Protein backbone atom coordinates (compact mmCIF):
# COMPACT_ATOMS: atom_id res chain seq x y z
CA UNK A 1 0.00 0.00 0.00
CA UNK A 2 1.25 3.46 -0.80
CA UNK A 3 1.34 6.29 1.72
CA UNK A 4 -1.03 9.25 1.59
CA UNK A 5 1.69 11.81 0.76
CA UNK A 6 2.21 10.07 -2.62
CA UNK A 7 -1.50 10.44 -3.38
CA UNK A 8 -1.74 14.04 -2.16
CA UNK A 9 1.21 15.18 -4.31
CA UNK A 10 -0.14 13.26 -7.30
CA UNK A 11 -3.70 14.56 -7.10
CA UNK A 12 -2.84 18.20 -6.40
CA UNK A 13 -0.48 18.37 -9.37
CA UNK A 14 -3.07 16.69 -11.56
CA UNK A 15 -5.44 19.53 -10.70
CA UNK A 16 -2.81 22.08 -11.79
CA UNK A 17 -2.48 20.10 -15.01
CA UNK A 18 -6.23 20.28 -15.71
CA UNK A 19 -6.33 24.03 -15.08
CA UNK A 20 -3.43 24.59 -17.51
CA UNK A 21 -5.10 22.46 -20.15
CA UNK A 22 -8.27 24.53 -20.12
CA UNK A 23 -6.43 27.83 -19.74
CA UNK A 24 -4.68 27.07 -23.06
CA UNK A 25 -7.77 28.40 -24.82
CA UNK A 26 -7.01 31.93 -23.65
CA UNK A 27 -3.26 31.67 -24.09
CA UNK A 28 -2.02 33.69 -27.11
CA UNK A 29 -5.61 34.10 -28.13
CA UNK A 30 -6.60 33.22 -31.66
CA UNK A 31 -9.83 32.37 -33.46
CA UNK A 32 -10.12 28.68 -32.62
CA UNK A 33 -12.65 28.20 -35.37
CA UNK A 34 -9.78 28.10 -37.84
CA UNK A 35 -8.10 24.77 -38.36
CA UNK A 36 -4.54 26.10 -38.18
CA UNK A 37 -5.36 27.98 -34.99
CA UNK A 38 -6.76 24.90 -33.26
CA UNK A 39 -4.40 22.27 -34.72
CA UNK A 40 -1.15 24.22 -35.00
CA UNK A 41 -1.60 26.83 -32.22
CA UNK A 42 -1.74 29.52 -34.92
CA UNK A 43 1.80 28.67 -36.17
CA UNK A 44 3.18 31.10 -33.60
CA UNK A 45 5.41 28.99 -31.36
CA UNK A 46 8.98 30.22 -30.83
CA UNK A 47 12.24 28.32 -30.23
CA UNK A 48 11.55 27.38 -26.60
CA UNK A 49 7.94 26.34 -27.10
CA UNK A 50 8.72 24.20 -30.14
CA UNK A 51 11.56 22.67 -28.12
CA UNK A 52 9.06 21.65 -25.44
CA UNK A 53 6.31 20.60 -27.81
CA UNK A 54 8.54 18.34 -29.92
CA UNK A 55 10.33 17.27 -26.77
CA UNK A 56 6.92 16.16 -25.50
CA UNK A 57 6.86 13.74 -28.40
CA UNK A 58 10.06 12.23 -27.05
CA UNK A 59 9.29 12.01 -23.34
CA UNK A 60 6.35 9.77 -23.94
CA UNK A 61 5.49 6.36 -22.63
CA UNK A 62 8.00 5.19 -25.23
CA UNK A 63 10.73 6.52 -22.91
CA UNK A 64 9.06 5.51 -19.65
CA UNK A 65 7.76 2.13 -20.64
CA UNK A 66 9.03 0.68 -23.91
CA UNK A 67 12.73 1.54 -23.54
CA UNK A 68 13.34 0.81 -19.81
CA UNK A 69 11.25 -2.33 -20.17
CA UNK A 70 13.42 -3.44 -23.10
CA UNK A 71 16.65 -2.69 -21.23
CA UNK A 72 15.30 -4.57 -18.19
CA UNK A 73 14.40 -7.65 -20.24
CA UNK A 74 17.05 -7.73 -22.99
CA UNK A 75 19.92 -5.46 -21.93
CA UNK A 76 22.03 -2.95 -23.83
CA UNK A 77 20.33 -3.48 -27.21
CA UNK A 78 17.51 -1.17 -26.11
CA UNK A 79 19.92 1.67 -25.38
CA UNK A 80 19.66 2.26 -29.16
CA UNK A 81 17.05 4.86 -28.24
CA UNK A 82 19.80 7.32 -27.28
CA UNK A 83 21.77 7.42 -30.57
CA UNK A 84 18.40 7.23 -32.32
CA UNK A 85 17.22 10.53 -30.87
CA UNK A 86 20.53 12.14 -31.82
CA UNK A 87 20.27 11.01 -35.40
CA UNK A 88 16.59 11.82 -35.79
CA UNK A 89 17.24 15.51 -35.06
CA UNK A 90 19.97 15.51 -37.70
CA UNK A 91 17.43 14.21 -40.21
CA UNK A 92 14.92 16.81 -39.04
CA UNK A 93 17.45 19.64 -39.18
CA UNK A 94 18.06 18.98 -42.86
CA UNK A 95 14.51 18.26 -44.02
CA UNK A 96 11.95 19.93 -41.74
CA UNK A 97 12.75 23.64 -42.30
CA UNK A 98 12.07 23.04 -45.99
CA UNK A 99 8.74 21.37 -45.25
CA UNK A 100 7.92 24.25 -42.90
CA UNK A 101 8.69 26.85 -45.59
CA UNK A 102 6.53 25.11 -48.20
CA UNK A 103 3.73 24.63 -45.65
CA UNK A 104 3.73 28.31 -44.73
CA UNK A 105 3.66 29.35 -48.41
CA UNK A 106 0.88 26.99 -49.41
CA UNK A 107 -1.07 26.50 -46.18
CA UNK A 108 -0.37 22.81 -45.55
CA UNK A 109 -1.43 21.38 -42.19
CA UNK A 110 -0.33 17.76 -42.76
CA UNK A 111 2.29 15.81 -44.73
CA UNK A 112 -0.53 14.50 -46.90
CA UNK A 113 -1.41 18.08 -47.92
CA UNK A 114 2.14 18.43 -49.22
CA UNK A 115 2.14 15.09 -51.03
CA UNK A 116 -1.15 15.83 -52.77
CA UNK A 117 0.09 19.19 -54.00
CA UNK A 118 3.55 17.94 -54.96
CA UNK A 119 2.54 14.81 -56.87
CA UNK A 120 -1.02 15.76 -57.85
CA UNK A 121 -2.28 12.40 -56.66
CA UNK A 122 -5.24 12.04 -54.31
CA UNK A 123 -4.66 8.29 -54.16
CA UNK A 124 -1.13 8.71 -52.83
CA UNK A 125 -2.24 11.44 -50.41
CA UNK A 126 -5.08 9.28 -49.04
CA UNK A 127 -2.76 6.28 -48.67
CA UNK A 128 -0.27 8.39 -46.73
CA UNK A 129 -3.03 9.73 -44.50
CA UNK A 130 -4.29 6.21 -43.76
CA UNK A 131 -0.76 4.97 -43.01
CA UNK A 132 -0.30 7.89 -40.61
CA UNK A 133 -3.58 7.27 -38.78
CA UNK A 134 -3.00 3.53 -38.46
CA UNK A 135 0.65 3.84 -37.36
CA UNK A 136 -0.32 6.45 -34.76
CA UNK A 137 -2.98 4.31 -33.04
CA UNK A 138 -0.65 1.84 -31.32
CA UNK A 139 1.54 4.81 -30.34
CA UNK A 140 -1.43 6.30 -28.47
CA UNK A 141 -2.19 2.89 -27.00
CA UNK A 142 1.39 2.76 -25.72
CA UNK A 143 0.84 6.08 -23.93
CA UNK A 144 -2.17 4.59 -22.17
CA UNK A 145 -0.14 1.54 -21.17
CA UNK A 146 2.38 3.93 -19.59
CA UNK A 147 -0.37 5.67 -17.63
CA UNK A 148 -1.75 2.29 -16.60
CA UNK A 149 1.67 1.25 -15.25
CA UNK A 150 1.70 4.23 -12.89
CA UNK A 151 -1.80 3.39 -11.65
CA UNK A 152 -0.94 -0.31 -11.26
CA UNK A 153 2.00 0.53 -9.01
CA UNK A 154 -0.04 3.07 -7.02
CA UNK A 155 -3.08 0.88 -6.52
CA UNK A 156 -1.33 -2.43 -5.93
CA UNK A 157 -2.52 -3.96 -2.69
CA UNK A 158 -5.95 -2.30 -2.89
CA UNK A 159 -9.05 -4.42 -3.26
CA UNK A 160 -10.53 -4.21 -6.78
CA UNK A 161 -7.31 -2.57 -8.03
CA UNK A 162 -8.15 -3.35 -11.65
CA UNK A 163 -11.55 -1.68 -11.53
CA UNK A 164 -10.22 1.41 -9.73
CA UNK A 165 -7.45 1.62 -12.30
CA UNK A 166 -9.76 1.47 -15.29
CA UNK A 167 -12.14 4.05 -13.83
CA UNK A 168 -9.23 6.41 -13.08
CA UNK A 169 -7.96 6.05 -16.65
CA UNK A 170 -11.41 6.75 -18.03
CA UNK A 171 -11.75 9.90 -15.91
CA UNK A 172 -8.31 11.11 -17.00
CA UNK A 173 -9.29 10.59 -20.62
CA UNK A 174 -12.60 12.41 -20.34
CA UNK A 175 -10.73 15.41 -18.88
CA UNK A 176 -8.11 15.21 -21.61
CA UNK A 177 -10.74 14.99 -24.32
CA UNK A 178 -12.56 17.99 -22.86
CA UNK A 179 -9.56 20.31 -22.82
CA UNK A 180 -8.25 19.20 -26.19
CA UNK A 181 -11.69 19.92 -27.60
CA UNK A 182 -11.72 23.45 -26.25
CA UNK A 183 -8.02 24.42 -26.41
CA UNK A 184 -6.52 22.38 -29.25
CA UNK A 185 -2.74 22.34 -29.59
CA UNK A 186 -2.43 25.35 -27.27
CA UNK A 187 -3.63 23.32 -24.30
CA UNK A 188 -1.31 20.48 -25.25
CA UNK A 189 1.70 22.84 -25.49
CA UNK A 190 1.08 24.42 -22.08
CA UNK A 191 0.65 21.05 -20.40
CA UNK A 192 3.72 19.75 -22.25
CA UNK A 193 5.86 22.40 -20.56
CA UNK A 194 4.38 21.53 -17.17
CA UNK A 195 5.02 17.83 -17.68
CA UNK A 196 8.55 18.29 -18.99
CA UNK A 197 9.58 20.42 -16.02
CA UNK A 198 8.38 17.69 -13.64
CA UNK A 199 10.12 14.98 -15.65
CA UNK A 200 13.41 16.87 -15.87
CA UNK A 201 13.40 17.33 -12.09
CA UNK A 202 12.58 13.63 -11.61
CA UNK A 203 15.35 12.54 -13.95
CA UNK A 204 17.93 14.72 -12.18
CA UNK A 205 16.90 13.47 -8.74
CA UNK A 206 16.90 9.83 -9.86
CA UNK A 207 20.34 9.98 -11.48
CA UNK A 208 21.86 11.48 -8.33
CA UNK A 209 19.86 9.77 -5.57
CA UNK A 210 19.54 6.22 -6.88
CA UNK A 211 23.23 5.45 -7.60
CA UNK A 212 24.14 6.87 -4.17
CA UNK A 213 21.51 4.81 -2.36
CA UNK A 214 22.52 1.56 -4.08
CA UNK A 215 26.28 2.08 -3.77
CA UNK A 216 27.19 3.24 -7.27
CA UNK A 217 26.48 2.09 -10.80
CA UNK A 218 29.08 -0.65 -10.53
CA UNK A 219 26.92 -2.38 -7.94
CA UNK A 220 23.98 -2.50 -10.38
CA UNK A 221 26.16 -3.64 -13.28
CA UNK A 222 27.65 -6.42 -11.15
CA UNK A 223 24.15 -7.88 -10.73
CA UNK A 224 23.46 -8.33 -14.46
CA UNK A 225 24.62 -10.51 -17.33
CA UNK A 226 27.27 -9.32 -19.81
CA UNK A 227 24.56 -8.63 -22.42
CA UNK A 228 23.57 -5.70 -20.20
CA UNK A 229 27.08 -4.21 -20.13
CA UNK A 230 27.90 -4.06 -23.84
CA UNK A 231 26.40 -5.44 -27.06
CA UNK A 232 27.35 -8.91 -28.17
CA UNK A 233 28.94 -8.58 -31.62
CA UNK A 234 26.05 -10.45 -33.25
CA UNK A 235 23.70 -7.62 -32.20
CA UNK A 236 25.77 -4.77 -33.69
CA UNK A 237 23.86 -4.76 -37.04
CA UNK A 238 20.57 -4.84 -35.11
CA UNK A 239 21.66 -1.87 -32.98
CA UNK A 240 22.80 0.20 -35.97
CA UNK A 241 19.66 -0.49 -38.03
CA UNK A 242 17.35 0.16 -35.06
CA UNK A 243 19.04 3.57 -34.76
CA UNK A 244 18.75 4.29 -38.48
CA UNK A 245 15.20 3.02 -38.98
CA UNK A 246 13.78 4.74 -35.91
CA UNK A 247 15.62 7.99 -36.69
CA UNK A 248 14.17 8.08 -40.19
CA UNK A 249 10.67 7.23 -38.92
CA UNK A 250 10.13 9.69 -36.03
CA UNK A 251 9.57 12.82 -38.11
CA UNK A 252 7.15 11.01 -40.39
CA UNK A 253 4.66 10.50 -37.56
CA UNK A 254 1.75 12.92 -37.95
CA UNK A 255 2.22 14.36 -34.44
CA UNK A 256 5.88 15.24 -35.12
CA UNK A 257 4.89 17.09 -38.27
CA UNK A 258 2.21 19.02 -36.34
CA UNK A 259 4.95 20.09 -33.92
CA UNK A 260 7.17 21.24 -36.78
CA UNK A 261 4.45 23.22 -38.53
CA UNK A 262 3.42 25.04 -35.34
CA UNK A 263 6.80 26.80 -35.33
CA UNK A 264 6.89 30.55 -35.91
CA UNK A 265 9.79 30.54 -38.38
CA UNK A 266 12.22 28.18 -40.10
CA UNK A 267 15.12 29.70 -38.14
CA UNK A 268 13.42 29.12 -34.80
CA UNK A 269 12.53 25.59 -35.84
CA UNK A 270 16.19 24.93 -36.75
CA UNK A 271 17.50 26.28 -33.44
CA UNK A 272 15.12 24.26 -31.29
CA UNK A 273 15.73 21.10 -33.33
CA UNK A 274 19.49 21.54 -32.93
CA UNK A 275 19.14 21.60 -29.14
CA UNK A 276 16.70 18.70 -28.89
CA UNK A 277 19.42 15.99 -28.59
CA UNK A 278 19.79 17.30 -25.02
CA UNK A 279 16.44 15.68 -24.30
CA UNK A 280 18.20 12.39 -24.89
CA UNK A 281 20.09 12.82 -21.60
CA UNK A 282 16.85 12.32 -19.69
CA UNK A 283 16.00 9.40 -21.91
CA UNK A 284 19.39 7.82 -21.12
CA UNK A 285 18.68 8.09 -17.40
CA UNK A 286 15.26 6.47 -17.83
CA UNK A 287 16.81 3.68 -19.91
CA UNK A 288 19.44 3.07 -17.21
CA UNK A 289 16.64 2.55 -14.69
CA UNK A 290 16.10 -0.80 -16.43
CA UNK A 291 19.52 -1.80 -15.03
CA UNK A 292 19.57 0.18 -11.75
CA UNK A 293 16.43 -1.61 -10.59
CA UNK A 294 18.39 -4.87 -10.30
CA UNK A 295 20.28 -3.35 -7.35
CA UNK A 296 17.14 -2.29 -5.46
CA UNK A 297 15.91 -5.42 -3.63
CA UNK A 298 12.62 -3.88 -2.44
CA UNK A 299 11.65 -2.89 -6.01
CA UNK A 300 12.70 -6.29 -7.38
CA UNK A 301 10.66 -7.97 -4.66
CA UNK A 302 7.65 -5.86 -5.60
CA UNK A 303 8.10 -6.68 -9.31
CA UNK A 304 8.32 -10.40 -8.58
CA UNK A 305 4.65 -10.24 -7.55
CA UNK A 306 3.70 -9.64 -11.20
CA UNK A 307 3.84 -12.01 -14.19
CA UNK A 308 7.23 -11.88 -15.91
CA UNK A 309 5.92 -10.38 -19.16
CA UNK A 310 4.49 -7.29 -17.44
CA UNK A 311 7.38 -6.57 -15.04
CA UNK A 312 9.31 -4.44 -17.53
CA UNK A 313 6.43 -2.01 -17.91
CA UNK A 314 6.45 -1.38 -14.16
CA UNK A 315 10.21 -0.86 -13.77
CA UNK A 316 10.28 2.95 -13.78
CA UNK A 317 7.27 3.62 -11.50
CA UNK A 318 8.29 0.97 -8.97
CA UNK A 319 11.92 2.14 -8.88
CA UNK A 320 10.65 5.67 -8.20
CA UNK A 321 8.28 4.50 -5.48
CA UNK A 322 10.92 2.39 -3.69
CA UNK A 323 13.88 4.79 -3.79
CA UNK A 324 12.44 8.31 -3.42
CA UNK A 325 10.56 9.94 -0.51
CA UNK A 326 6.77 9.60 -0.72
CA UNK A 327 5.84 13.19 -1.60
CA UNK A 328 8.49 13.30 -4.31
CA UNK A 329 7.46 9.91 -5.69
CA UNK A 330 3.94 11.35 -6.03
CA UNK A 331 5.27 14.25 -8.12
CA UNK A 332 7.40 11.96 -10.27
CA UNK A 333 4.58 9.47 -10.85
CA UNK A 334 2.28 12.30 -11.89
CA UNK A 335 4.98 13.41 -14.34
CA UNK A 336 4.98 9.97 -15.93
CA UNK A 337 1.20 9.78 -15.90
CA UNK A 338 0.73 13.07 -17.78
CA UNK A 339 3.78 12.08 -19.81
CA UNK A 340 1.42 9.64 -21.48
CA UNK A 341 -1.60 11.91 -21.47
CA UNK A 342 -0.08 14.93 -23.26
CA UNK A 343 1.44 13.04 -26.21
CA UNK A 344 -1.82 11.13 -26.56
CA UNK A 345 -3.58 14.48 -27.03
CA UNK A 346 -1.04 15.72 -29.59
CA UNK A 347 -1.24 12.45 -31.50
CA UNK A 348 -5.03 12.39 -31.61
CA UNK A 349 -5.07 15.99 -32.93
CA UNK A 350 -2.67 14.99 -35.71
CA UNK A 351 -4.75 11.93 -36.62
CA UNK A 352 -7.90 14.02 -36.73
CA UNK A 353 -6.28 16.49 -39.13
CA UNK A 354 -5.37 13.68 -41.51
CA UNK A 355 -8.84 12.15 -41.34
CA UNK A 356 -10.66 15.43 -41.96
CA UNK A 357 -8.41 17.15 -44.48
CA UNK A 358 -6.98 14.26 -46.41
CA UNK A 359 -9.70 11.63 -46.35
CA UNK A 360 -13.14 13.16 -45.65
CA UNK A 361 -12.49 16.36 -47.60
CA UNK A 362 -11.13 14.30 -50.47
CA UNK A 363 -14.45 12.47 -50.72
CA UNK A 364 -16.66 15.52 -49.98
CA UNK A 365 -14.63 18.52 -51.17
CA UNK A 366 -17.15 21.28 -50.38
CA UNK A 367 -17.19 21.09 -46.57
CA UNK A 368 -17.34 24.53 -44.93
CA UNK A 369 -14.54 25.70 -42.63
CA UNK A 370 -16.79 25.47 -39.60
CA UNK A 371 -17.77 21.87 -40.30
CA UNK A 372 -14.14 21.01 -40.99
CA UNK A 373 -13.09 22.19 -37.54
CA UNK A 374 -16.06 20.44 -35.95
CA UNK A 375 -15.25 17.11 -37.60
CA UNK A 376 -11.59 17.50 -36.62
CA UNK A 377 -12.47 18.13 -32.97
CA UNK A 378 -14.93 15.25 -32.78
CA UNK A 379 -12.65 12.76 -34.51
CA UNK A 380 -9.72 13.70 -32.28
CA UNK A 381 -11.93 12.75 -29.33
CA UNK A 382 -12.97 9.53 -31.02
CA UNK A 383 -9.38 8.46 -31.73
CA UNK A 384 -8.47 8.81 -28.06
CA UNK A 385 -11.28 6.54 -26.98
CA UNK A 386 -10.55 4.00 -29.71
CA UNK A 387 -7.01 3.72 -28.32
CA UNK A 388 -8.36 3.47 -24.77
CA UNK A 389 -10.74 0.69 -25.76
CA UNK A 390 -7.85 -1.07 -27.44
CA UNK A 391 -5.82 -1.00 -24.21
CA UNK A 392 -8.73 -2.35 -22.16
CA UNK A 393 -9.14 -5.22 -24.61
CA UNK A 394 -5.59 -6.41 -25.33
CA UNK A 395 -2.73 -7.18 -22.90
CA UNK A 396 -0.27 -4.32 -22.29
CA UNK A 397 2.74 -6.19 -23.63
CA UNK A 398 0.92 -6.52 -26.95
CA UNK A 399 0.56 -2.74 -27.23
CA UNK A 400 4.35 -2.30 -27.13
CA UNK A 401 4.82 -4.85 -29.89
CA UNK A 402 2.21 -3.19 -32.06
CA UNK A 403 4.03 0.09 -31.66
CA UNK A 404 7.08 -1.57 -33.23
CA UNK A 405 4.88 -2.50 -36.17
CA UNK A 406 3.66 1.12 -36.33
CA UNK A 407 7.27 2.26 -36.77
CA UNK A 408 7.75 -0.12 -39.68
CA UNK A 409 4.57 1.17 -41.37
CA UNK A 410 5.25 4.89 -40.93
CA UNK A 411 8.79 4.54 -42.35
CA UNK A 412 7.24 3.61 -45.70
CA UNK A 413 5.95 7.13 -46.38
CA UNK A 414 9.53 8.47 -46.36
CA UNK A 415 10.15 8.37 -50.14
CA UNK A 416 7.14 10.60 -50.87
CA UNK A 417 7.41 12.94 -47.88
CA UNK A 418 11.16 13.47 -47.39
CA UNK A 419 12.63 12.70 -50.82
CA UNK A 420 9.62 14.45 -52.33
CA UNK A 421 10.95 17.67 -50.80
CA UNK A 422 14.16 17.52 -52.84
CA UNK A 423 14.04 15.05 -55.72
CA UNK A 424 12.21 16.42 -58.75
CA UNK A 425 12.26 13.21 -60.79
CA UNK A 426 10.02 11.14 -58.44
CA UNK A 427 6.70 10.04 -59.97
CA UNK A 428 3.45 9.16 -58.23
CA UNK A 429 2.87 5.63 -59.59
CA UNK A 430 6.21 4.14 -58.46
CA UNK A 431 5.73 5.87 -55.09
CA UNK A 432 2.31 4.22 -54.67
CA UNK A 433 3.68 0.80 -55.60
CA UNK A 434 6.74 1.30 -53.38
CA UNK A 435 4.54 2.24 -50.41
CA UNK A 436 2.31 -0.81 -50.87
CA UNK A 437 5.24 -3.21 -51.31
CA UNK A 438 7.07 -1.61 -48.36
CA UNK A 439 4.06 -2.08 -46.08
CA UNK A 440 3.34 -5.58 -47.39
CA UNK A 441 6.94 -6.76 -47.04
CA UNK A 442 7.21 -5.14 -43.59
CA UNK A 443 4.14 -6.94 -42.28
CA UNK A 444 5.28 -10.21 -43.84
CA UNK A 445 8.75 -10.00 -42.29
CA UNK A 446 7.30 -9.16 -38.84
CA UNK A 447 5.04 -12.21 -39.11
CA UNK A 448 7.90 -14.41 -40.30
CA UNK A 449 10.32 -13.12 -37.63
CA UNK A 450 7.78 -14.03 -34.96
CA UNK A 451 6.91 -17.38 -36.55
CA UNK A 452 3.40 -16.02 -37.21
CA UNK A 453 2.77 -15.89 -33.44
CA UNK A 454 2.48 -12.89 -31.06
CA UNK A 455 4.83 -10.01 -31.95
CA UNK A 456 7.90 -9.79 -29.78
CA UNK A 457 10.65 -9.05 -32.29
CA UNK A 458 11.02 -6.44 -35.02
CA UNK A 459 14.35 -7.85 -36.22
CA UNK A 460 14.73 -10.03 -39.29
CA UNK A 461 17.62 -12.48 -39.60
CA UNK A 462 19.72 -11.87 -42.70
CA UNK A 463 23.19 -12.92 -43.83
CA UNK A 464 24.45 -9.73 -42.13
CA UNK A 465 22.86 -10.72 -38.83
CA UNK A 466 19.53 -9.50 -37.38
CA UNK A 467 18.34 -6.25 -39.00
CA UNK A 468 15.45 -3.93 -38.12
CA UNK A 469 12.62 -4.71 -40.52
CA UNK A 470 11.74 -1.04 -41.14
CA UNK A 471 15.14 -0.55 -42.80
CA UNK A 472 14.80 -3.58 -45.09
CA UNK A 473 11.31 -2.76 -46.30
CA UNK A 474 12.23 0.92 -46.71
CA UNK A 475 15.17 -0.11 -48.90
CA UNK A 476 12.82 -2.16 -51.12
CA UNK A 477 10.36 0.74 -51.19
CA UNK A 478 13.06 3.25 -52.18
CA UNK A 479 14.40 0.94 -54.91
CA UNK A 480 10.90 0.73 -56.44
CA UNK A 481 10.21 4.46 -56.12
CA UNK A 482 13.50 5.58 -57.67
CA UNK A 483 13.86 2.69 -60.14
CA UNK A 484 10.27 3.10 -61.35
CA UNK A 485 10.56 6.88 -61.69
CA UNK A 486 13.77 6.45 -63.69
CA UNK A 487 12.13 3.85 -65.97
CA UNK A 488 9.16 6.16 -66.62
CA UNK A 489 11.50 9.00 -67.50
CA UNK A 490 13.42 6.77 -69.93
CA UNK A 491 10.31 5.48 -71.71
CA UNK A 492 8.92 9.02 -71.99
CA UNK A 493 12.24 10.15 -73.48
CA UNK A 494 12.06 7.32 -76.03
CA UNK A 495 8.53 8.26 -77.11
CA UNK A 496 9.41 11.87 -77.88
Amino acid at each position, binding site marked *: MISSDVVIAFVSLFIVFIVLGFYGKYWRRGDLNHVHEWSLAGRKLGTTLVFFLIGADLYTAYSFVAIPSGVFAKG*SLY*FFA*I*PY*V*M*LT*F*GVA*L*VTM*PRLWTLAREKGYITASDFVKDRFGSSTLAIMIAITGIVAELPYIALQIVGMQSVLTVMFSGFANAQVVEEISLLIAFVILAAFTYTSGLRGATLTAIFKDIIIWITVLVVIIAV*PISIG*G*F*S*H*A*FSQVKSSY*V*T*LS*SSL*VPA*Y*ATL*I*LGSALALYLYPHAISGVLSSESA*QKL*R*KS*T*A*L*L*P*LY*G*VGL*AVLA*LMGILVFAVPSAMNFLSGFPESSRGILVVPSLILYTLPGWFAGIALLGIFVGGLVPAAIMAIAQANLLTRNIIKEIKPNISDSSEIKITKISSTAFKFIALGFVFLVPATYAISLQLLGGILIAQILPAVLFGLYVKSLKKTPLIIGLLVGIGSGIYMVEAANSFGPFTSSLFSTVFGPIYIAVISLAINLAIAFGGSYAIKKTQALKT
Partner: protein
Amino acid sequence: MRIKKIHVILALLILIPSFVNLGVPIYNRESPEILGLPFFYWFQTLWLFATAGFYFVFAHLKEKHHDKL
Protein backbone atom coordinates in the same frame (compact mmCIF):
# COMPACT_ATOMS: atom_id res chain seq x y z
CA MET B 1 34.18 29.16 -54.06
CA ARG B 2 33.19 30.39 -50.60
CA ILE B 3 29.73 28.93 -50.92
CA LYS B 4 31.22 25.58 -51.82
CA LYS B 5 33.36 25.53 -48.69
CA ILE B 6 30.41 26.36 -46.47
CA HIS B 7 28.44 23.50 -48.03
CA VAL B 8 31.18 21.06 -47.08
CA ILE B 9 31.27 22.39 -43.53
CA LEU B 10 27.48 22.14 -43.21
CA ALA B 11 27.51 18.57 -44.51
CA LEU B 12 30.27 17.58 -42.08
CA LEU B 13 28.38 19.07 -39.13
CA ILE B 14 25.57 16.59 -39.81
CA LEU B 15 27.69 13.66 -41.03
CA ILE B 16 30.28 13.50 -38.21
CA PRO B 17 27.76 12.89 -35.38
CA SER B 18 25.79 10.48 -37.61
CA PHE B 19 28.93 8.51 -38.46
CA VAL B 20 29.80 8.10 -34.77
CA ASN B 21 26.22 7.12 -33.91
CA LEU B 22 26.00 4.45 -36.57
CA GLY B 23 29.59 3.26 -36.08
CA VAL B 24 28.55 1.05 -33.18
CA PRO B 25 31.95 -0.74 -32.75
CA ILE B 26 33.48 2.68 -31.91
CA TYR B 27 31.73 2.75 -28.56
CA ASN B 28 30.74 -0.86 -27.95
CA ARG B 29 33.26 -1.46 -25.14
CA GLU B 30 33.20 -1.83 -21.39
CA SER B 31 36.18 0.24 -20.24
CA PRO B 32 37.20 2.86 -19.29
CA GLU B 33 34.36 3.19 -16.82
CA ILE B 34 33.20 6.43 -15.21
CA LEU B 35 31.64 6.13 -11.73
CA GLY B 36 31.12 2.46 -12.47
CA LEU B 37 29.24 3.17 -15.68
CA PRO B 38 30.57 1.18 -18.68
CA PHE B 39 32.01 3.15 -21.63
CA PHE B 40 29.08 2.04 -23.83
CA TYR B 41 26.62 3.97 -21.64
CA TRP B 42 28.50 7.11 -20.63
CA PHE B 43 30.01 7.73 -24.05
CA GLN B 44 26.65 7.72 -25.82
CA THR B 45 25.14 9.94 -23.15
CA LEU B 46 27.97 12.51 -23.31
CA TRP B 47 27.95 12.37 -27.13
CA LEU B 48 24.45 13.87 -26.93
CA PHE B 49 26.01 17.17 -25.80
CA ALA B 50 28.58 17.08 -28.60
CA THR B 51 25.86 16.33 -31.14
CA ALA B 52 23.74 19.24 -29.94
CA GLY B 53 26.89 21.40 -30.35
CA PHE B 54 27.45 20.28 -33.96
CA TYR B 55 23.78 20.82 -34.79
CA PHE B 56 23.69 24.23 -33.16
CA VAL B 57 26.65 25.42 -35.23
CA PHE B 58 24.84 24.04 -38.30
CA ALA B 59 21.69 26.00 -37.44
CA HIS B 60 23.73 29.13 -36.77
CA LEU B 61 25.73 28.95 -40.03
CA LYS B 62 22.61 28.20 -42.03
CA GLU B 63 20.94 31.30 -40.63
CA LYS B 64 24.01 33.49 -41.23
CA HIS B 65 24.36 32.44 -44.86
CA HIS B 66 20.65 32.33 -45.42
CA ASP B 67 20.57 34.36 -48.62
CA LYS B 68 23.29 32.40 -50.32
CA LEU B 69 22.16 28.86 -49.54
